[in-house]
Protein backbone atom coordinates (compact mmCIF):
# COMPACT_ATOMS: atom_id res chain seq x y z
CA UNK A 1 0.00 0.00 0.00
CA UNK A 2 2.79 2.41 0.84
CA UNK A 3 4.48 1.79 -2.49
CA UNK A 4 1.12 2.27 -4.21
CA UNK A 5 0.67 5.66 -2.51
CA UNK A 6 4.28 6.59 -3.15
CA UNK A 7 3.82 5.96 -6.86
CA UNK A 8 0.50 7.83 -6.88
CA UNK A 9 1.97 10.90 -5.21
CA UNK A 10 5.12 10.79 -7.31
CA UNK A 11 3.04 10.80 -10.49
CA UNK A 12 0.82 13.62 -9.28
CA UNK A 13 3.92 15.65 -8.32
CA UNK A 14 5.46 15.04 -11.75
CA UNK A 15 2.23 16.05 -13.48
CA UNK A 16 1.52 19.25 -11.58
CA UNK A 17 5.01 20.71 -11.46
CA UNK A 18 6.08 23.11 -14.17
CA UNK A 19 6.47 21.27 -17.47
CA UNK A 20 4.17 18.46 -16.36
CA UNK A 21 1.07 17.85 -18.42
CA UNK A 22 -1.65 18.90 -15.99
CA UNK A 23 -1.46 22.69 -16.31
CA UNK A 24 -1.03 22.46 -20.07
CA UNK A 25 -4.12 20.27 -20.36
CA UNK A 26 -6.15 22.84 -18.42
CA UNK A 27 -4.88 25.68 -20.62
CA UNK A 28 -5.65 23.65 -23.73
CA UNK A 29 -9.15 22.94 -22.43
CA UNK A 30 -9.84 26.66 -21.87
CA UNK A 31 -8.35 27.65 -25.22
CA UNK A 32 -10.34 25.12 -27.25
CA UNK A 33 -13.57 26.01 -25.49
CA UNK A 34 -12.92 29.71 -26.16
CA UNK A 35 -12.39 29.04 -29.86
CA UNK A 36 -15.80 27.43 -30.31
CA UNK A 37 -17.91 30.62 -29.98
CA UNK A 38 -15.44 32.33 -32.32
CA UNK A 39 -16.18 29.60 -34.82
CA UNK A 40 -19.93 29.18 -34.48
CA UNK A 41 -20.95 32.71 -33.49
CA UNK A 42 -21.96 34.40 -30.28
CA UNK A 43 -25.62 33.37 -30.26
CA UNK A 44 -26.04 32.46 -26.60
CA UNK A 45 -29.07 30.29 -27.26
CA UNK A 46 -27.09 28.16 -29.69
CA UNK A 47 -24.07 28.14 -27.38
CA UNK A 48 -26.04 26.99 -24.35
CA UNK A 49 -27.50 24.24 -26.51
CA UNK A 50 -24.10 22.87 -27.54
CA UNK A 51 -22.31 23.65 -24.26
CA UNK A 52 -22.47 20.11 -22.90
CA UNK A 53 -21.13 18.56 -26.08
CA UNK A 54 -18.39 21.14 -26.58
CA UNK A 55 -17.15 20.98 -23.00
CA UNK A 56 -17.21 17.20 -23.00
CA UNK A 57 -15.32 16.88 -26.28
CA UNK A 58 -12.79 19.50 -25.21
CA UNK A 59 -12.29 17.80 -21.85
CA UNK A 60 -11.63 14.45 -23.55
CA UNK A 61 -9.15 16.04 -25.94
CA UNK A 62 -7.41 17.89 -23.12
CA UNK A 63 -7.11 14.70 -21.08
CA UNK A 64 -5.69 12.89 -24.11
CA UNK A 65 -3.09 15.59 -24.56
CA UNK A 66 -1.47 14.73 -21.25
CA UNK A 67 -1.91 10.98 -21.64
CA UNK A 68 0.75 10.13 -24.18
CA UNK A 69 3.54 10.73 -21.65
CA UNK A 70 1.82 8.65 -18.96
CA UNK A 71 4.16 5.69 -19.49
CA UNK A 72 6.47 6.98 -22.19
CA UNK A 73 8.47 9.30 -19.92
CA UNK A 74 9.06 6.49 -17.42
CA UNK A 75 9.88 4.13 -20.27
CA UNK A 76 12.48 6.44 -21.76
CA UNK A 77 14.37 7.21 -18.55
CA UNK A 78 14.22 3.59 -17.41
CA UNK A 79 12.14 4.14 -14.29
CA UNK A 80 9.38 1.97 -15.76
CA UNK A 81 11.70 -1.04 -15.49
CA UNK A 82 12.20 -0.28 -11.81
CA UNK A 83 8.47 0.19 -11.25
CA UNK A 84 7.77 -3.16 -12.90
CA UNK A 85 10.47 -4.85 -10.80
CA UNK A 86 9.06 -3.41 -7.57
CA UNK A 87 6.93 -5.74 -5.39
CA UNK A 88 3.82 -3.77 -6.41
CA UNK A 89 1.63 -5.77 -8.77
CA UNK A 90 1.63 -4.31 -12.25
CA UNK A 91 -2.16 -4.09 -12.19
CA UNK A 92 -1.96 -2.02 -9.01
CA UNK A 93 0.69 0.13 -10.67
CA UNK A 94 -1.77 0.72 -13.48
CA UNK A 95 -4.45 1.75 -10.98
CA UNK A 96 -2.01 4.19 -9.36
CA UNK A 97 -1.08 5.66 -12.75
CA UNK A 98 -4.71 6.03 -13.78
CA UNK A 99 -5.63 7.50 -10.40
CA UNK A 100 -2.76 9.98 -10.55
CA UNK A 101 -3.74 11.07 -14.05
CA UNK A 102 -7.32 11.55 -12.98
CA UNK A 103 -6.40 13.49 -9.83
CA UNK A 104 -3.95 15.70 -11.74
CA UNK A 105 -6.03 16.20 -14.91
CA UNK A 106 -9.59 14.88 -14.76
CA UNK A 107 -10.50 16.49 -11.46
CA UNK A 108 -9.11 19.99 -12.31
CA UNK A 109 -10.80 19.78 -15.72
CA UNK A 110 -14.08 19.06 -14.00
CA UNK A 111 -13.66 22.06 -11.71
CA UNK A 112 -12.67 24.34 -14.58
CA UNK A 113 -15.65 23.21 -16.63
CA UNK A 114 -18.03 24.87 -14.15
CA UNK A 115 -16.26 28.15 -14.80
CA UNK A 116 -16.19 27.74 -18.58
CA UNK A 117 -19.90 26.83 -18.60
CA UNK A 118 -20.57 30.48 -17.76
CA UNK A 119 -19.16 31.46 -21.16
CA UNK A 120 -21.86 29.33 -22.76
CA UNK A 121 -24.73 30.62 -20.64
CA UNK A 122 -25.35 27.09 -19.41
CA UNK A 123 -28.25 26.93 -16.97
CA UNK A 124 -27.69 26.02 -13.34
CA UNK A 125 -29.20 22.58 -13.81
CA UNK A 126 -27.08 22.06 -16.91
CA UNK A 127 -23.91 23.13 -15.11
CA UNK A 128 -24.69 20.77 -12.25
CA UNK A 129 -25.17 17.89 -14.67
CA UNK A 130 -21.99 18.85 -16.54
CA UNK A 131 -19.85 18.86 -13.42
CA UNK A 132 -21.41 15.65 -12.14
CA UNK A 133 -21.05 13.90 -15.51
CA UNK A 134 -17.42 14.97 -15.85
CA UNK A 135 -16.75 13.84 -12.29
CA UNK A 136 -18.18 10.43 -13.11
CA UNK A 137 -16.89 10.18 -16.67
CA UNK A 138 -13.32 11.46 -16.55
CA UNK A 139 -12.08 8.35 -14.70
CA UNK A 140 -13.20 6.37 -17.76
CA UNK A 141 -11.24 8.76 -19.96
CA UNK A 142 -8.11 8.23 -17.83
CA UNK A 143 -8.66 4.46 -17.74
CA UNK A 144 -9.24 3.96 -21.47
CA UNK A 145 -6.57 6.51 -22.27
CA UNK A 146 -4.09 4.60 -20.11
CA UNK A 147 -4.62 1.52 -22.29
CA UNK A 148 -3.76 3.58 -25.36
CA UNK A 149 -0.78 5.14 -23.60
CA UNK A 150 0.55 1.75 -22.52
CA UNK A 151 0.10 0.26 -25.99
CA UNK A 152 1.97 3.11 -27.65
CA UNK A 153 4.63 3.67 -25.01
CA UNK A 154 7.52 2.41 -27.14
CA UNK A 155 6.44 4.24 -30.30
CA UNK A 156 8.32 7.45 -30.90
CA UNK A 157 5.35 9.31 -32.40
CA UNK A 158 2.91 7.45 -30.19
CA UNK A 159 1.08 10.66 -29.37
CA UNK A 160 -0.26 10.71 -32.92
CA UNK A 161 -1.66 7.18 -32.82
CA UNK A 162 -3.05 7.43 -29.30
CA UNK A 163 -6.11 9.60 -30.18
CA UNK A 164 -7.02 7.34 -33.09
CA UNK A 165 -7.01 4.32 -30.79
CA UNK A 166 -8.70 5.92 -27.82
CA UNK A 167 -11.32 8.29 -29.25
CA UNK A 168 -13.67 5.67 -30.77
CA UNK A 169 -13.55 3.76 -27.48
CA UNK A 170 -14.57 6.90 -25.61
CA UNK A 171 -17.64 7.56 -27.73
CA UNK A 172 -20.01 6.16 -25.06
CA UNK A 173 -18.58 8.52 -22.41
CA UNK A 174 -19.09 11.57 -24.64
CA UNK A 175 -22.59 10.44 -25.62
CA UNK A 176 -23.80 9.74 -22.08
CA UNK A 177 -22.00 12.75 -20.59
CA UNK A 178 -23.29 15.37 -23.00
CA UNK A 179 -26.67 13.59 -23.06
CA UNK A 180 -26.96 14.06 -19.32
CA UNK A 181 -26.27 17.78 -19.68
CA UNK A 182 -28.86 18.17 -22.44
CA UNK A 183 -31.49 16.26 -20.48
CA UNK A 184 -30.87 18.37 -17.38
CA UNK A 185 -31.19 21.58 -19.42
CA UNK A 186 -34.52 20.42 -20.76
CA UNK A 187 -35.61 19.32 -17.33
CA UNK A 188 -36.02 15.77 -18.52
CA UNK A 189 -35.32 12.67 -16.52
CA UNK A 190 -32.76 10.52 -18.26
CA UNK A 191 -30.73 7.49 -17.41
CA UNK A 192 -27.63 9.07 -18.90
CA UNK A 193 -25.82 9.50 -15.60
CA UNK A 194 -26.53 5.90 -14.57
CA UNK A 195 -25.31 4.63 -17.93
CA UNK A 196 -22.23 6.83 -17.64
CA UNK A 197 -21.57 5.48 -14.16
CA UNK A 198 -21.86 1.92 -15.42
CA UNK A 199 -19.53 2.63 -18.33
CA UNK A 200 -17.03 4.38 -16.09
CA UNK A 201 -17.04 1.57 -13.54
CA UNK A 202 -16.55 -1.03 -16.23
CA UNK A 203 -13.62 0.88 -17.73
CA UNK A 204 -11.95 1.48 -14.38
CA UNK A 205 -12.38 -2.16 -13.35
CA UNK A 206 -11.16 -3.75 -16.57
CA UNK A 207 -8.56 -1.37 -17.92
CA UNK A 208 -5.83 -2.05 -15.30
CA UNK A 209 -5.56 -5.58 -16.68
CA UNK A 210 -5.24 -4.36 -20.27
CA UNK A 211 -2.77 -1.68 -19.16
CA UNK A 212 -0.64 -4.19 -17.26
CA UNK A 213 -0.62 -6.60 -20.20
CA UNK A 214 0.36 -3.78 -22.55
CA UNK A 215 3.22 -2.62 -20.32
CA UNK A 216 4.44 -6.19 -19.94
CA UNK A 217 4.56 -6.84 -23.67
CA UNK A 218 6.42 -3.61 -24.29
CA UNK A 219 9.09 -4.44 -21.71
CA UNK A 220 9.50 -8.08 -22.73
CA UNK A 221 12.58 -8.67 -24.81
CA UNK B 1 -31.39 -0.65 -72.56
CA UNK B 2 -31.53 3.00 -71.53
CA UNK B 3 -34.24 2.01 -69.08
CA UNK B 4 -31.81 -0.48 -67.55
CA UNK B 5 -29.13 2.21 -67.36
CA UNK B 6 -31.39 4.79 -65.77
CA UNK B 7 -32.60 2.31 -63.12
CA UNK B 8 -35.91 4.11 -62.73
CA UNK B 9 -34.23 7.45 -62.21
CA UNK B 10 -31.82 6.20 -59.57
CA UNK B 11 -29.16 5.23 -62.12
CA UNK B 12 -26.49 7.47 -60.64
CA UNK B 13 -26.79 6.00 -57.15
CA UNK B 14 -27.18 2.38 -58.25
CA UNK B 15 -24.30 2.50 -60.71
CA UNK B 16 -21.98 4.45 -58.42
CA UNK B 17 -22.58 1.84 -55.73
CA UNK B 18 -21.64 -0.87 -58.18
CA UNK B 19 -18.61 1.07 -59.39
CA UNK B 20 -17.38 1.71 -55.85
CA UNK B 21 -17.94 -1.92 -54.84
CA UNK B 22 -16.21 -3.23 -57.96
CA UNK B 23 -13.31 -0.85 -57.41
CA UNK B 24 -12.94 -1.85 -53.75
CA UNK B 25 -13.15 -5.58 -54.48
CA UNK B 26 -10.77 -5.22 -57.44
CA UNK B 27 -8.35 -3.21 -55.34
CA UNK B 28 -8.38 -5.80 -52.55
CA UNK B 29 -7.80 -8.66 -54.98
CA UNK B 30 -5.07 -6.85 -56.93
CA UNK B 31 -3.29 -5.65 -53.80
CA UNK B 32 -3.44 -9.05 -52.13
CA UNK B 33 -2.19 -10.93 -55.20
CA UNK B 34 0.58 -8.38 -55.82
CA UNK B 35 1.87 -8.79 -52.27
CA UNK B 36 1.68 -12.57 -52.60
CA UNK B 37 3.69 -12.60 -55.86
CA UNK B 38 6.27 -10.23 -54.43
CA UNK B 39 6.71 -12.36 -51.33
CA UNK B 40 7.02 -15.53 -53.41
CA UNK B 41 9.59 -13.94 -55.68
CA UNK B 42 11.63 -12.61 -52.76
CA UNK B 43 11.70 -16.01 -51.09
CA UNK B 44 12.57 -17.76 -54.35
CA UNK B 45 15.48 -15.35 -54.91
CA UNK B 46 16.75 -16.05 -51.40
CA UNK B 47 16.52 -19.79 -51.82
CA UNK B 48 18.23 -19.61 -55.24
CA UNK B 49 21.18 -17.71 -53.84
CA UNK B 50 21.38 -20.38 -51.16
CA UNK B 51 22.03 -23.13 -53.70
CA UNK B 52 24.60 -20.98 -55.48
CA UNK B 53 26.92 -21.12 -52.56
Amino acid at each position, binding site marked *: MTSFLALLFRDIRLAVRAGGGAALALAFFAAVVTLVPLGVGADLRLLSRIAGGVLWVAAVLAALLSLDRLFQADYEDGSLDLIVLSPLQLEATAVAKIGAHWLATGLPLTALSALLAVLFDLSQAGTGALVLSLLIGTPAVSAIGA*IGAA*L*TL*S*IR*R*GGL*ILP*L*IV*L*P*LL*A*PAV*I*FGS*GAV*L*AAQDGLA*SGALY*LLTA*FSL*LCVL*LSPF*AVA*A*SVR*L*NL*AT | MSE*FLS*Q*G*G*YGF*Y*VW*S*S*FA*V*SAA*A*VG*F*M*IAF*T*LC*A*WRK*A*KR*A*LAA*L*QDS*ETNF
Partner: protein
Amino acid sequence: MSIFELANPKRFMQVSAVFLPWIAAAAAVTLAAGLVLGFAVPPDYQQGTTVRIMFLHVPAAWTAMMAYGLMAVASAIGLINRHPLADVAAKAAAPLGAVFTALGLVTGSLWGKPMWGAWWVWDGRLTSFLLLLFLYLGYIALGGAIEDENRSARACAILAIVGAVNLPIIEFSVDWWTTLHQGESILRKGGPLIAPVFLWPLFLMALGYTLLFFALWLVRIRTEIVNRRARTLTMARAT
Protein backbone atom coordinates in the same frame (compact mmCIF):
# COMPACT_ATOMS: atom_id res chain seq x y z
CA MET C 1 15.39 -20.27 -35.98
CA SER C 2 11.88 -19.21 -35.20
CA ILE C 3 9.29 -21.61 -33.92
CA PHE C 4 7.33 -20.43 -36.88
CA GLU C 5 8.94 -22.93 -39.21
CA LEU C 6 8.52 -25.83 -36.83
CA ALA C 7 4.93 -25.27 -35.81
CA ASN C 8 1.84 -25.54 -37.93
CA PRO C 9 2.50 -23.00 -40.70
CA LYS C 10 3.95 -25.62 -42.99
CA ARG C 11 0.84 -27.68 -42.62
CA PHE C 12 -1.27 -24.53 -43.00
CA MET C 13 0.44 -23.77 -46.29
CA GLN C 14 -0.33 -27.25 -47.61
CA VAL C 15 -3.96 -27.30 -46.51
CA SER C 16 -4.72 -23.75 -47.57
CA ALA C 17 -3.20 -24.34 -50.99
CA VAL C 18 -5.71 -27.14 -51.52
CA PHE C 19 -8.77 -25.18 -50.36
CA LEU C 20 -7.94 -21.76 -51.72
CA PRO C 21 -8.85 -22.30 -55.41
CA TRP C 22 -12.20 -23.81 -54.41
CA ILE C 23 -13.07 -20.96 -52.07
CA ALA C 24 -12.07 -18.40 -54.69
CA ALA C 25 -14.10 -20.15 -57.38
CA ALA C 26 -17.13 -20.45 -55.08
CA ALA C 27 -16.83 -16.73 -54.28
CA ALA C 28 -16.76 -15.83 -57.97
CA VAL C 29 -19.76 -18.04 -58.77
CA THR C 30 -21.94 -16.84 -55.87
CA LEU C 31 -21.08 -13.19 -56.49
CA ALA C 32 -21.93 -13.55 -60.20
CA ALA C 33 -25.19 -15.33 -59.40
CA GLY C 34 -26.04 -12.72 -56.77
CA LEU C 35 -25.43 -9.88 -59.20
CA VAL C 36 -27.55 -11.48 -61.94
CA LEU C 37 -30.38 -12.20 -59.52
CA GLY C 38 -30.03 -8.73 -58.03
CA PHE C 39 -30.75 -7.14 -61.37
CA ALA C 40 -33.50 -9.59 -62.16
CA VAL C 41 -35.63 -8.66 -59.13
CA PRO C 42 -38.45 -6.17 -59.67
CA PRO C 43 -37.94 -2.70 -58.16
CA ASP C 44 -39.25 -2.40 -54.61
CA TYR C 45 -42.55 -0.53 -54.39
CA GLN C 46 -41.14 1.89 -51.85
CA GLN C 47 -37.45 2.14 -52.64
CA GLY C 48 -37.57 1.55 -56.38
CA THR C 49 -34.36 0.33 -57.94
CA THR C 50 -32.27 1.62 -55.04
CA VAL C 51 -33.11 -1.64 -53.33
CA ARG C 52 -30.33 -3.03 -55.53
CA ILE C 53 -27.84 -1.00 -53.52
CA MET C 54 -28.90 -3.09 -50.54
CA PHE C 55 -27.39 -6.17 -52.19
CA LEU C 56 -24.01 -4.44 -52.09
CA HIS C 57 -24.40 -2.49 -48.88
CA VAL C 58 -25.72 -5.04 -46.39
CA PRO C 59 -23.31 -7.88 -47.34
CA ALA C 60 -20.34 -5.47 -47.10
CA ALA C 61 -21.50 -4.40 -43.65
CA TRP C 62 -21.99 -7.99 -42.50
CA THR C 63 -18.58 -9.00 -43.78
CA ALA C 64 -16.98 -6.04 -42.03
CA MET C 65 -18.49 -7.08 -38.70
CA MET C 66 -17.60 -10.73 -39.23
CA ALA C 67 -14.02 -9.67 -40.01
CA TYR C 68 -13.77 -7.80 -36.70
CA GLY C 69 -15.16 -10.80 -34.86
CA LEU C 70 -12.68 -13.15 -36.51
CA MET C 71 -9.87 -10.69 -35.83
CA ALA C 72 -10.79 -10.53 -32.14
CA VAL C 73 -11.02 -14.32 -31.85
CA ALA C 74 -7.69 -14.80 -33.62
CA SER C 75 -6.19 -12.11 -31.35
CA ALA C 76 -7.42 -13.89 -28.23
CA ILE C 77 -5.97 -17.19 -29.43
CA GLY C 78 -2.71 -15.50 -30.30
CA LEU C 79 -2.52 -13.78 -26.94
CA ILE C 80 -3.47 -16.78 -24.79
CA ASN C 81 -1.86 -19.63 -26.71
CA ARG C 82 1.02 -17.58 -28.11
CA HIS C 83 0.33 -19.10 -31.46
CA PRO C 84 2.11 -17.12 -34.20
CA LEU C 85 -0.32 -18.29 -36.88
CA ALA C 86 -3.19 -16.70 -34.96
CA ASP C 87 -1.21 -13.45 -34.70
CA VAL C 88 -0.65 -13.47 -38.44
CA ALA C 89 -4.32 -14.26 -39.10
CA ALA C 90 -5.54 -11.40 -36.90
CA LYS C 91 -3.27 -8.87 -38.56
CA ALA C 92 -4.12 -10.13 -42.04
CA ALA C 93 -7.85 -9.63 -41.46
CA ALA C 94 -7.65 -5.95 -40.46
CA PRO C 95 -7.07 -4.21 -43.81
CA LEU C 96 -9.74 -6.36 -45.46
CA GLY C 97 -12.18 -5.55 -42.67
CA ALA C 98 -11.37 -1.85 -43.01
CA VAL C 99 -12.05 -1.89 -46.76
CA PHE C 100 -15.36 -3.72 -46.25
CA THR C 101 -16.31 -1.20 -43.54
CA ALA C 102 -15.50 1.73 -45.82
CA LEU C 103 -17.41 0.04 -48.63
CA GLY C 104 -20.42 -0.39 -46.36
CA LEU C 105 -20.25 3.30 -45.42
CA VAL C 106 -19.94 4.56 -49.00
CA THR C 107 -22.71 2.36 -50.39
CA GLY C 108 -24.85 3.27 -47.38
CA SER C 109 -24.29 6.90 -48.18
CA LEU C 110 -25.18 6.32 -51.83
CA TRP C 111 -28.34 4.61 -50.65
CA GLY C 112 -29.12 7.33 -48.14
CA LYS C 113 -29.00 10.20 -50.61
CA PRO C 114 -32.03 9.12 -52.69
CA MET C 115 -33.87 7.61 -49.70
CA TRP C 116 -33.18 10.15 -46.96
CA GLY C 117 -32.28 13.13 -49.10
CA ALA C 118 -28.84 13.44 -47.48
CA TRP C 119 -25.49 11.81 -48.08
CA TRP C 120 -25.03 11.29 -44.41
CA VAL C 121 -27.57 10.82 -41.67
CA TRP C 122 -26.50 10.39 -38.06
CA ASP C 123 -28.37 7.14 -37.92
CA GLY C 124 -27.36 4.67 -35.23
CA ARG C 125 -25.99 2.09 -37.58
CA LEU C 126 -24.09 4.52 -39.79
CA THR C 127 -22.52 6.17 -36.77
CA SER C 128 -21.39 2.99 -35.11
CA PHE C 129 -19.99 1.85 -38.44
CA LEU C 130 -17.96 5.03 -38.73
CA LEU C 131 -16.57 4.30 -35.26
CA LEU C 132 -15.83 0.73 -36.36
CA LEU C 133 -13.80 2.13 -39.25
CA PHE C 134 -11.79 4.23 -36.79
CA LEU C 135 -11.20 1.14 -34.65
CA TYR C 136 -9.85 -0.67 -37.70
CA LEU C 137 -7.65 2.28 -38.67
CA GLY C 138 -6.28 2.57 -35.13
CA TYR C 139 -5.50 -1.14 -35.14
CA ILE C 140 -3.69 -0.92 -38.47
CA ALA C 141 -1.78 2.21 -37.40
CA LEU C 142 -0.69 0.59 -34.13
CA GLY C 143 0.44 -2.58 -35.90
CA GLY C 144 2.41 -0.57 -38.43
CA ALA C 145 4.09 1.63 -35.84
CA ILE C 146 5.62 -1.14 -33.70
CA GLU C 147 8.53 -2.69 -35.52
CA ASP C 148 9.11 -5.75 -33.39
CA GLU C 149 6.96 -8.55 -34.80
CA ASN C 150 6.04 -10.10 -31.47
CA ARG C 151 5.32 -6.88 -29.64
CA SER C 152 3.29 -5.57 -32.52
CA ALA C 153 1.15 -8.71 -32.63
CA ARG C 154 0.48 -8.67 -28.90
CA ALA C 155 -0.26 -4.95 -28.75
CA CYS C 156 -2.67 -5.33 -31.65
CA ALA C 157 -4.28 -8.33 -29.96
CA ILE C 158 -4.93 -6.34 -26.78
CA LEU C 159 -6.40 -3.48 -28.80
CA ALA C 160 -8.62 -5.85 -30.79
CA ILE C 161 -9.95 -7.46 -27.62
CA VAL C 162 -10.52 -4.11 -25.88
CA GLY C 163 -12.34 -2.99 -29.02
CA ALA C 164 -14.44 -6.15 -29.13
CA VAL C 165 -15.49 -5.65 -25.50
CA ASN C 166 -16.30 -2.02 -26.18
CA LEU C 167 -18.10 -2.46 -29.52
CA PRO C 168 -21.44 -3.59 -28.05
CA ILE C 169 -21.29 -0.67 -25.60
CA ILE C 170 -20.53 1.76 -28.43
CA GLU C 171 -23.41 0.32 -30.42
CA PHE C 172 -25.75 0.64 -27.45
CA SER C 173 -24.67 4.19 -26.67
CA VAL C 174 -25.08 5.29 -30.27
CA ASP C 175 -28.57 3.76 -30.41
CA TRP C 176 -29.43 5.52 -27.15
CA TRP C 177 -28.03 8.74 -28.59
CA THR C 178 -30.10 8.59 -31.79
CA THR C 179 -33.31 8.20 -29.80
CA LEU C 180 -32.29 11.20 -27.70
CA HIS C 181 -31.60 13.34 -30.77
CA GLN C 182 -34.61 12.21 -32.74
CA GLY C 183 -34.41 13.95 -36.10
CA GLU C 184 -37.32 14.32 -38.50
CA SER C 185 -38.86 10.96 -39.10
CA ILE C 186 -37.00 9.10 -41.76
CA LEU C 187 -37.84 6.21 -43.96
CA ARG C 188 -36.21 3.21 -42.35
CA LYS C 189 -33.76 1.49 -44.63
CA GLY C 190 -34.75 -2.00 -45.65
CA GLY C 191 -37.94 -1.84 -43.64
CA PRO C 192 -39.04 -4.44 -41.15
CA LEU C 193 -39.84 -7.08 -43.72
CA ILE C 194 -37.88 -7.97 -46.80
CA ALA C 195 -39.86 -9.63 -49.56
CA PRO C 196 -38.55 -13.13 -50.35
CA VAL C 197 -37.58 -12.14 -53.90
CA PHE C 198 -35.01 -9.81 -52.37
CA LEU C 199 -33.75 -12.41 -49.92
CA TRP C 200 -32.08 -14.64 -52.48
CA PRO C 201 -29.79 -12.08 -54.08
CA LEU C 202 -29.04 -10.67 -50.62
CA PHE C 203 -28.13 -14.10 -49.31
CA LEU C 204 -26.01 -14.92 -52.35
CA MET C 205 -24.14 -11.62 -52.21
CA ALA C 206 -23.52 -12.05 -48.48
CA LEU C 207 -22.19 -15.55 -49.05
CA GLY C 208 -20.09 -14.30 -51.96
CA TYR C 209 -18.54 -11.49 -49.94
CA THR C 210 -17.87 -13.87 -47.05
CA LEU C 211 -16.15 -16.37 -49.35
CA LEU C 212 -14.21 -13.56 -51.00
CA PHE C 213 -13.07 -12.38 -47.59
CA PHE C 214 -11.92 -15.86 -46.63
CA ALA C 215 -10.08 -16.34 -49.93
CA LEU C 216 -8.25 -13.02 -49.59
CA TRP C 217 -7.61 -13.65 -45.91
CA LEU C 218 -5.96 -17.00 -46.67
CA VAL C 219 -3.78 -15.43 -49.37
CA ARG C 220 -2.75 -12.65 -46.98
CA ILE C 221 -1.87 -15.16 -44.25
CA ARG C 222 0.13 -17.19 -46.77
CA THR C 223 1.91 -14.04 -47.92
CA GLU C 224 2.93 -13.17 -44.37
CA ILE C 225 4.17 -16.71 -43.75
CA VAL C 226 6.32 -16.52 -46.89
CA ASN C 227 7.58 -13.09 -45.82
CA ARG C 228 8.54 -14.37 -42.38
CA ARG C 229 10.30 -17.34 -43.88
CA ALA C 230 12.27 -14.99 -46.10
CA ARG C 231 13.10 -12.83 -43.10
CA THR C 232 14.40 -15.76 -41.04
CA LEU C 233 16.46 -16.87 -44.03
CA THR C 234 18.05 -13.43 -44.39
CA MET C 235 18.64 -13.30 -40.66
CA ALA C 236 20.27 -16.74 -40.66
CA ARG C 237 22.41 -15.66 -43.60
CA ALA C 238 23.53 -12.50 -41.85
CA THR C 239 24.84 -14.29 -38.78
